């Protein structure tokens, strides 16, 4: 009988357990990957549809196939470059790592552009938060936002995925028409009504109590991504104002 308390045995046993655990996890994770990727793609498309506030919204009873068809019918996938040019013949899925190109999702209703959506993501407190921000066709007003993947504390930072928080963003501005400057929408600590003067309220949304750091994270990455897409929306605004 081997001495179970010897150092060699202890280390050997630990190694075997680690190896067996990691092997089984790796096998299962790889085996289920295709199924998981289908789910994630569907989730992304569902969230783009949610962010752009479809005229006929996606209902929970809709089958995956219907959602995909709706997506194909309403959303045009585009790619833009850092200087705001649309790259005509590219799809978001064809963007390679390291390329300075960004996806843009255009929602059209009867050929008329209704909204532009683009991905926004960045650090919250514990995790990376993923979402989509949709702007109205004027390029200055938030049409909708979703945060769909995160690892924040449920009940605190996790509230970013809740309807009440996302509803806050609707109708807020990212562009200050008076001073003609960019003013990305930001999350305040506390309530907007208490913290911000009347004229500025259109640039801010209510924070989540107990989750100041998450709110700060959201403010920071929204700011970053709005600036990335700014050259493109600048062009849109310029063509619209006479």
């Amino acid at each position: 009988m081997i001495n179970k308390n010897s150092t060699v045995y202890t280390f050997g046993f630990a190694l075997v357990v680690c190896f067996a655990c990691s092997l089984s996890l790796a096998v299962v994770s790889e085996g289920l990957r295709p199924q998981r990727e289908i789910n994630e793609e569907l989730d992304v498309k569902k969230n783009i549809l949610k962010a752009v506030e479809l005229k006929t919204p996606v209902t929970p009873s809709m089958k995956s196939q219907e959602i995909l068809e709706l997506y194909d019918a309403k959303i045009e996938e585009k790619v833009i470059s850092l200087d705001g040019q649309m790259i005509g013949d590219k799809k978001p899925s064809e963007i390679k790592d390291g390329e300075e190109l960004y996806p843009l999702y255009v929602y059209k209703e009867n050929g008329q552009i209704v909204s532009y959506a683009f991905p926004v993501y960045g650090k919250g407190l514990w995790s990376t938060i993923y979402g989509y921000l949709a702007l109205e066709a004027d390029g200055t007003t938030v049409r909708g936002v979703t945060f769909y993947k995160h690892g924040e504390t449920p009940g605190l930072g996790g509230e970013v995925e809740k309807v009440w928080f996302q509803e806050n963003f609707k109708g807020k501005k990212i562009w200050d028409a008076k001073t003609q400057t960019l003013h990305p929408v930001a999350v305040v600590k506390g309530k907007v009504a208490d913290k911000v003067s009347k004229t500025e309220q259109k640039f801010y949304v209510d924070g989540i109590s107990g989750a100041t750091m998450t709110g700060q994270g959201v403010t920071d990455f929204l700011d970053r991504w709005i600036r990335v897409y700014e050259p493109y929306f600048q062009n849109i605004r310029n063509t619209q104002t006479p």
Partner: protein
Amino acid sequence: MISNKDKKIVKDALWDNNPITYQILGICSALAVTVQMKTALVMSVSLTLVVAFSNVAISLLRNYIPSKIRIIVQLSVVSALVILADQFLKAYMFDVSKQLSVFVGLIITNCIVMGRAEGFAMQNPPFRSFLDGLGNGLGYSCVLIVVSVFREVLGSGTLLGFQVVPQAFYDAGYVNCGLMVLAPGAFFLLGAVIWVQRSISGYVEQ
């Protein structure tokens, strides 16, 4: 094949020694996942499977585990099983897995799982440990299901997503109880469940 002693193991865990109402373990997740019955059911199934199979695995290894590192070995086995369960949920029940969010991962820290591994599986043969895990998992599930039925019906007026409170009630001025959707509602219900169970079993604190 199943002796009386084996039956007692399962029965004990379900009633006299229920992990939630008697041992007051696993309360955190019991509060978090019982707003809707669907999430409570999925959580119950996941936890029962994890507890049963981690007990079997630990029991099989019990004569080989060096006592110095037994807790970390138990933890590795439990976490591996939990991540497997999480992967399956992500692949086949994506929406539910999103609602359960971190709580599937938190099965790892659910005191019931580690408690049964250390307290039972380390001393008992595999089949008996399996029964013990099953019993404890089901004991946990029963309480979760009772709590979630009350919370969903009173808090949202639905059961498993179907409307059960008739529209006529709402027209007559009935309002869903908001408290039931929040964690305190679960505390009250859990207290009530423990009260009812203890007054039936006649259990008295020593």
